[in-house]
């Protein structure tokens, strides 16, 4: 099997080959590093490539496996991390000049758990500056593997591009308004934002404490389930990490899927959904019915107010975290990040509390909705990818909404409510760019989410490497 063929395997497939000693962790890691070297100049998916430590870890994994000390499906498998996960001895920049030389003295809990499972950390992925919507010019944008002139969206931009291009078998990102799920949709991969409290955020540079989630990004649903199972669960270092049992998510995929009722979010005035995305979502609903699920139309509760509350909380919490550096070195932020952070510093506390009150109403509305349905289906992003370049746009529009609001229409409400959502590839636009749909579940309902998303993916055969493969390697 050639290096590119190795890199095109799914995480679960390569894990099985390693377990059966058909291929060694060193071979897999070398193939991945070689592919990164080949494609990185065109993608800009990484801030730091951890070649030396990855090869050392792969050698250790190979020795352990040959001694019969096999750790499980991640043993010897290369994984990347958004560059806001603390990695001991390896700089963690959050793609900002402010943290450009920050070298943590410990690993994030997620990183520790991945290492314990035998995963090989291959590198730190590029991202929007501090996960706050803008690319810092020092780090530059990540290019979409499907079309290099197009963006990946953010903020987990490098993670999505790396997974789509076969630069590692999975990645971990963070999601405060959609930052795992949106780039996953734009790059044709699977991205999970777990339930708030499902995965520890200890050792992850925060954006907004009460909205931040971390989760896996992979090329298929089974791989996503494997990664979540490896990192989920309570953590003494994160008081928000819930003491809720962690199911065997991947095993659940092999069980019969219950005949669930799925609520399909209906079109609404001003939702901004393009015809391509609407058609893909409608096709997804048809597929679900063909699979035996019952679908019923539902309305999205308080879509504008949910985003308004999310942004009020995000502006204030992000500014609070950044106060020390905002005071001492504001010029080191990108123009728009600085502007959002300064504006957040000027928002009255009463607005923040009103946003938390609105949050309760939105949570209650979704709780009521989930009395009638088991899952929701929606578009992931209202539109597909966009061309890179163009002039800088002000963060706040003339009508006072943040310009990220439209993009976060279907992702943001679930950061606000904490409910789990997964983005799954659902086709391509007439221009050949990926489209994702989103499934949303009940709190800690990731098992059902995976089962339905897996059934959908199996039915649509939408597990696809970029058709831009020729473009990438030419």
């Amino acid at each position: 099997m050639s290096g590119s063929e190795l890199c095109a395997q799914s995480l679960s497939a390569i894990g099985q080959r390693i377990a059966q000693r058909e291929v060694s962790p060193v071979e897999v890691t070398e193939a991945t590093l070689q592919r990164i070297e080949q494609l990185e100049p065109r993608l800009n998916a990484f801030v730091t490539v951890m070649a030396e430590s990855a090869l050392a870890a792969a050698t250790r994994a190979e020795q352990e496996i040959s001694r019969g000390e096999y750790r499980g499906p991640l043993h010897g498998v290369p994984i990347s991390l958004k560059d806001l996960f603390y990695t001991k001895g390896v700089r963690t920049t959050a793609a900002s000049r402010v943290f450009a030389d920050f070298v943590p003295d410990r690993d994030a809990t997620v990183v520790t758990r991945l290492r314990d499972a035998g995963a090989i950390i291959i590198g730190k992925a590029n991202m929007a500056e501090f996960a706050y919507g803008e690319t810092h010019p020092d780090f530059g944008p990540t290019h979409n593997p499907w079309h290099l002139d197009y963006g990946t969206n953010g903020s987990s931009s490098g993670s999505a591009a790396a997974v789509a291009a076969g630069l590692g078998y999975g990645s971990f990102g963070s999601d405060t308004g959609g930052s795992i799920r949106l780039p996953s949709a734009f790059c044709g991969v699977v991205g999970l934002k777990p339930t708030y409290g499902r995965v520890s955020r200890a050792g992850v540079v925060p954006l907004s404490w009460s909205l931040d989630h971390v989760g896996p990004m992979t090329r298929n649903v089974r791989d996503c389930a494997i990664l979540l199972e490896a990192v989920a669960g309570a953590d003494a270092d994160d008081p928000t990490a819930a003491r809720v049992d962690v199911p065997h998510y991947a095993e659940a995929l092999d069980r019969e899927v219950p005949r669930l009722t799925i609520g399909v979010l209906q079109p609404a005035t001003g939702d901004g959904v393009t015809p391509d995305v609407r058609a893909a979502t409608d096709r997804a609903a048809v597929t679900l019915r063909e699979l035996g699920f019952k679908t019923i139309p539902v309305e999205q509760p308080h879509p504008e107010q949910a985003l308004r509350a999310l942004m009020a909380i995000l502006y204030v919490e992000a500014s609070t975290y950044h106060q020390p550096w905002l005071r001492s070195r504001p010029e080191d932020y990108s123009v728009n990040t600085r502007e959002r952070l300064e504006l957040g510093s000027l928002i009255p506390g009463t607005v923040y509390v009103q946003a938390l009150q609105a949050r309760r109403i939105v949570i209650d509305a979704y709780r009521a909705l989930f009395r009638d349905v088991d899952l929701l289906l929606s578009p992931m992003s209202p539109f597909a990818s966009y061309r890179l370049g163009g002039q800088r746009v002000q963060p706040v529009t003339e009508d006072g909404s943040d310009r990220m609001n439209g993009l976060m229409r279907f992702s943001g409400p679930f950061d606000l409510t904490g409910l789990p959502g997964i983005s799954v590839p659902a086709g391509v636009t007439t221009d050949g760019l990926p489209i994702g749909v989103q499934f949303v579940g009940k709190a800690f309902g990731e098992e059902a989410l995976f089962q339905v998303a897996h059934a959908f993916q199996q039915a649509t055969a939408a597990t696809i490497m970029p058709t831009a493969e020729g473009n990438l390697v030419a």
Partner: protein
Amino acid sequence: MATHERQPEANNRPARPMTVGQLELSAERREFLAPRLAALLADFSKLEALASSDWEPAMTAELTDEVRRERE
């Protein structure tokens, strides 16, 4: 932008300066931000239509706590 990893070195995360009170912005900066802040606050004021002063604010992890209690 990719670079190869560095050798372990001292933790040089930017120091948190000892400052107190509100962020101090220059007059020029405040003037620059003023119209954007006004627009933002006008938009956020629409939260009043949904939020009532009688409502207890929703706090972090409340949703997950409820599920945890149900399962314990």
